[in-house]
């Protein structure tokens, strides 16, 4: 029995040591002026930019990545939260953070100059980092460029019956597109459109954007919706290269305007303990170097005017983005989700 007493004692000790070490770490990170980030983006996508920042300034960046729950964590941690910045992959979450009251406004000349007004919150509660276009992928074999849909509206046309694949309608990227549809046409017509698309689906919504392209390659469907950067990502991947090779990108327009875009973005937290360095990081990421790195490594469109986009992006075609204000898109997202439920898009 003595043995188990030891086990219990040493385990307890381990908890305290580990916990203590982690706490000390956390405290030290706050004190040393390190920048702490809560990120909805996979860290391997943003780490190179953080590393560049650290090389430049000597300031370390610490990250917690989670696909959900970070806004709740900020909210609960309140004034003592160690986080300085929150990163998201879409406008919806960014707005969630703002509406939850966990962000603070920040305005510096370099930020406001770099980022167009439609890609930042009016008071500086959040800033866009990159643009991603929600485009169409069409089968090279079965859809000729002349026939390919020129607009999102056409996706509801019965001539595409059984030929379209998308991911879950409840996913933030799909929700943003439906929101944009509502912003352009109002709820009733957006609902008709969603029903039309649903009726044209070749299969129940499943998988992510890459999986849809894969389905095209395998002949399950002919047209899919997906973010533009997946094209580059797939070309880089040994196995997925063939998927990308089977399709070509199409930039459809919405409401006679441009292609629907979403942003990845960042916000300064209300409790930010190292505000100065956090703002430095924000400025660094909207600087030319980081913007170019983003574009070249992740195939996203730079949000700062004048920064050259990656060669591959240029080869995919010209992006002319929908001029709709992103705040508008965010404003309709709850209505969009309800529509998705209402038409039973995912069933």
């Amino acid at each position, binding site marked *: *029995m003595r043995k188990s007493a030891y*086990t*219990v004692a040493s*385990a*307890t000790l381990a*908890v305290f040591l*580990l*916990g203590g070490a*982690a706490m000390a*770490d*956390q*405290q030290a*990170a*706050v004190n040393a002026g390190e920048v*702490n980030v809560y990120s909805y983006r*996979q*860290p*391997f996508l943003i780490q190179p930019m953080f590393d560049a920042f650290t090389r430049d300034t000597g300031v370390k960046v*610490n*990250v*917690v*990545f*989670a*696909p*959900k*729950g970070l806004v*709740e*964590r900020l909210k*609960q*941690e*309140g004034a*003592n939260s*160690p986080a300085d910045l929150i990163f998201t992959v879409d406008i*919806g979450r960014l707005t969630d953070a703002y*509406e*939850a009251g966990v962000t603070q406004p920040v305005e510096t000349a370099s930020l406001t100059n770099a980022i167009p007004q439609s890609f930042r919150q009016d008071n500086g509660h959040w800033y866009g980092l990159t643009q991603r276009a929600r485009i169409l992928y069409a089968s090279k074999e079965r859809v000729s460029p002349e026939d390919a849909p020129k607009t999102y509206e056409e996706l509801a046309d019965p001539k595409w019956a059984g030929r379209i694949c998308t991911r*879950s309608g*409840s996913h*933030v990227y799909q*929700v943003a597109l439906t929101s944009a549809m509502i912003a352009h046409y109002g709820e009733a017509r957006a609902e008709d459109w969603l029903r039309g698309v649903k009726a044209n689906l070749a299969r*129940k*919504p*499943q*998988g*992510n954007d*890459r999986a849809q392209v*894969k*389905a095209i390659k*395998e*002949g*399950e469907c002919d047209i899919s919706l997906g973010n533009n950067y997946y094209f580059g990502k797939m070309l880089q991947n040994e196995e997925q290269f063939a998927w990308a090779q089977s399709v070509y990108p199409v930039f459809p327009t919405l409401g006679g305007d441009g292609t629907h875009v979403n942003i990845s973005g960042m916000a300064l937290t209300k409790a930010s303990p190292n505000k100065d360095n956090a703002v430095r990081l924000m400025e660094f990421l909207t600087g030319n170097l980081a913007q170019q790195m983003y574009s070249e490594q992740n195939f996203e469109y730079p949000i700062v005017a004048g920064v050259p986009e990656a060669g591959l992006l240029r080869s995919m075609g010209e992006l002319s983005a929908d001029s709709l204000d992103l705040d508008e898109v965010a404003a309709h*997202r*709850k209505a969009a*989700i*309800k529509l998705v*439920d*209402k038409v*039973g898009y*995912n*069933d």
Partner: protein
Amino acid sequence: MSSTTIDMAHSPARARSGRVWLFGGALVAVLVAAPLIAITVLALFPSENIWGHLISTVLPRHSWNTLVLMFGNGLGVFVIGTTTAWLTSTCRFPGRRTFEWALLLPLAVPAYIVAFVYTDILEFAGPVQGVLRDMFGWTSARDYWFPDIRTMGGAIFVMSFVLYPYVYLLARASFQEQSAVLLEVSRTLGRGPWQTFFHVALPLARPAIVVGVALALMETLADFGTVDFFAVNTLTRSVFNVWLGMGNAGGAAQIALVMLGFVLLVIAFERIGRRGRQYHQTTNRYIATPQHELRGLRAVAAILACFIPVAVGFLVPAGVLLRHSIVFFDQSWNADFFGFARNSLLLAAIAAVAVIAVAVFLAYGQRLSRSRSFTMLARISILGYAVPGAVLAVGVLIPLARFDNAVDAFMRDWFGISTGLLLSGTIFALVFAYVVRFLAVGFGAVESSLGQVRPTMDMAARSLGAGPGRTLWRIHMPLVRGSLLAGATIVFVDTMKELPATLILRPFNFDTLATHVYQFASDELLEQSALSALTIVAAGIVPVVLLSRAMNRPRRGGRALTPIEAGLTDSR
């Protein structure tokens, strides 16, 4: 398990010491229940009332899907678990001794990885359909029919083969504990092996099987990874749509409470299933269970029946991971790998000890108190097992952050120093979450094995002057050690696999094997983290095999060690 109460009021000192246990137990129960209470409170204040919308749209369908999934999984784990348990414990056929432990292996593989692997293999683009197309010259999906893996059926298939070990584990222990005499009597009275199984063994094992099925059903309810991957719209998925899409944590908590309704269904099922079936061993005579020799076709059938679950639940997924690990070794292998592994192992070990310690406290407090309210409290505190991990994580955040901020405010007011967040965002928060999540497993193991220790033991010890603490330490602990070990093992393996709560609650720059795998798997790049995934599996195998061996070893006094007779068991 007589109903004799333990009289603790002989001397004031002892009464006090008894109260310490009661009070301590109750305190622990309240602490563990705090996140669940926080979720309930959250549900009372949604940012927008969306009930009308949900009821008129997705709720009925998603509830129905949840029911179908539970029914399918329940049936699946029952059939697979009971069959394999019966074969390995009462029949003799080639490979039986290997199957005994191999059948537990699927426990070590995270369900979301199994889902990923099977989608890869069986979907339209996968090798199986590819080969079929080549063979028959089909070109597109319209040329032939093939069952779609990303459906309800696929989810039931995968989850049944991952969760059946819970039933197998419990059913086998029960079959082994059944007095050999009973089965022999049945046979000598002219019953065949089938009749003996259906009329004697199965009814006797019913309580154990029901507990196993209940555990699997709770896991089913809490699962998000698999159903999300298979696009099966269950209540768990609605929870996340409402929470993440609409930013309505309160609304999500409300759906989570609807799910608790399903848990009550499971508990009711479990109670009814066990009603009046508290049988006691009347004899300590343990004869090695009679081995019914199987030959020829029967032996082949038995081998297949045992091999298929092992192959589907373990060999195929582990094989695919192994292949990816080798092909993508350069990308999988990096300097951080050992760090991830260390974090995973350490967390799992700490969680295992913590869960068992809390479980002992609760179960012993319950044994001493024999009060209904204490029992109720204990029951509530183990409900965390059926709550989706991410929701539970938010439940954990709330009380911890409240505590931290209260301490901070107090210290600022009185001493002018800020303590910041003491517990939130630390390892402690993670371990706390694991305790809340997996207490059901540990508590079930401890409670049921303590229940087998006769109250007369307590009385003897107490009348000889030992207090309740000493009695626990010197008498009960040695007797129930095996069950504690089994419970700790399952918690260890479960913690290794746990993902959603770990993601949300972990400290900065802190990755475990599971979170590392997720980063890539969520981007359809599982290959690049296959090595970490394989390590999760490998780390799970060792304790699982040890557990199996421990269960086989007959204990002094005559019977094999009680396995984890887990979750929601009522020893009275």
